[in-house]
């Protein structure tokens, strides 16, 4: 790592919130449209995103490159930390430990999830119209469903607790009271976002996504 670790660490903290945290919120809302509006609602949200101009560059500069930097540097940070929760069983020390554990889980989960969805779209194996059915196929497998549950909860915890740490690291919440209030707000964000993601995972398991999948299968079969 050339240059000064102060700036690298500051950049790492910033990227976690802007753009990655904002992207995670957008992702939670888009997925939630699967719960709220079923396959059509979800497809509308997906189409809305894909209609954005310069979508490739938006993805590159606001998602992929920040994830790559935040993930790789984050692994290094996790490596330089000890976990001493057995000796110091304080809430914040547990959050410190979970921040590193969930960070590693999230990074692995994101790579796997990108491979299953985004890379397959790029390879031409699925189209953006089939994302809902693809998700149904994945979460229909009970093992994958559990892994997705763990993945989204880890990601949401990492973001919410990371937002709390961002406010400290940038000198916004200084005193104990400010940090206590912000930790309650961040845990509220954790609960809300976790519920949104979990509801959408259950929605993807639903029969309507299966029937959409079946319908597409029939159409493909007939066309084929």
């Amino acid at each position, binding site marked *: 790592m050339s240059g*000064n*670790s102060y700036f690298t660490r500051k950049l790492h903290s910033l990227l976690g919130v802007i753009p990655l945290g904002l992207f995670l919120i957008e992702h939670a809302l888009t997925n939630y449209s699967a719960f709220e509006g079923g396959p059509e609602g979800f497809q509308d949200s997906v189409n809305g995103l894909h209609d954005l101009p310069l979508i490739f560059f938006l993805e590159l500069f606001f998602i992929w490159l920040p994830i790559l930097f935040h993930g790789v540097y984050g692994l290094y940070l996790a490596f330089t930390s000890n976990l001493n929760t057995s000796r110091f069983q304080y809430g914040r020390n547990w959050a410190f*430990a979970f921040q590193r554990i969930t960070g590693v889980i999230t990074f692995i989960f994101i790579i796997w999830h990108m491979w299953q969805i985004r890379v397959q779209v790029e390879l031409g194996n699925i189209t953006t119209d089939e994302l809902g059915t693809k998700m149904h196929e994945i979460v229909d497998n009970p093992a994958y469903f559990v892994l997705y549950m763990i993945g989204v909860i880890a990601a949401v915890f990492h973001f919410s607790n990371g937002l709390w740490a961002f406010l400290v690291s940038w000198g916004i919440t200084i005193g104990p009271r400010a940090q206590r209030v912000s930790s309650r707000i961040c845990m509220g964000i954790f609960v809300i976002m976790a519920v949104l993601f979990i509801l959408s995972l259950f929605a993807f398991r639903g029969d309507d996504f299966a029937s959409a999948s079946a319908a597409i299968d029939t159409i493909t079969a007939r066309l084929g």
Partner: protein
Amino acid sequence: MAETATATAKRTVKFIITRRATPDSTPYNEEFDIPYRPNMNVISALMEIQRNPVKADGSKTTPVVWESNCLEEVCGACSMVINGKPRQACSALIDQLEQPIRVAPMTTFPVVRDLVVNRQRMFNALKRVKAWIPIDGTYDLGPGPRMAESKRQWAYELSKCMTCGVCLEACPNVNDRSSFIGPAPISQVRLFNAHPTGEMNAHERLEALMTDGGIEGCGNSQNCVRSCPKGIPLTTSIAAMNKDTTKHMFKKWLGM
């Protein structure tokens, strides 16, 4: 009276002490049964072992080596890990400790022998962040600016730091794989930057915190503030210095 005296003499305190002969040798545990006396602390128990270096099994051993000085929790020399928590041995009262009492050196620091550690890295860190007020010169500079009483009150709390090393021992980010200087020197930057004369060199201390192993090493586990024997608001100091270094970074970028 005689009966009470015998009863007291019979009572013993069990100690399990982690020892090592040289800095590089393998640590080992030794058990001791020390005669109980009222109001004992860990230091007086160690003194008892020094007087009579006999282990719990009756065999002789070398006296346990430790460091201590003020015996009133202001010098920081006798910090060690007692029942899992880093603290001063002088203020660790036997009556308040669960037995067997486990005593070990603070392994965040290089162990010299038994319970003696080398806290040189903390003094190096204080030099690195320039934790002093430069007033020496070739002529009398006259009196400095006055400090507001309200500010003096909270700054005094920060000045209680005795470089004891407990916060570094508690910090999960102070270890062999990281160059983090630890919480104590960051709080000292806040102390000297708060001083009306020290403030004149505030940028030098902030820039020292913005180098490798500086304030960025903090991972917000907040064990330091929970462990500090002097009750110094270390995490408030760290967050305040986060604010000041962030402001300093933007000012430098913008050329202000």
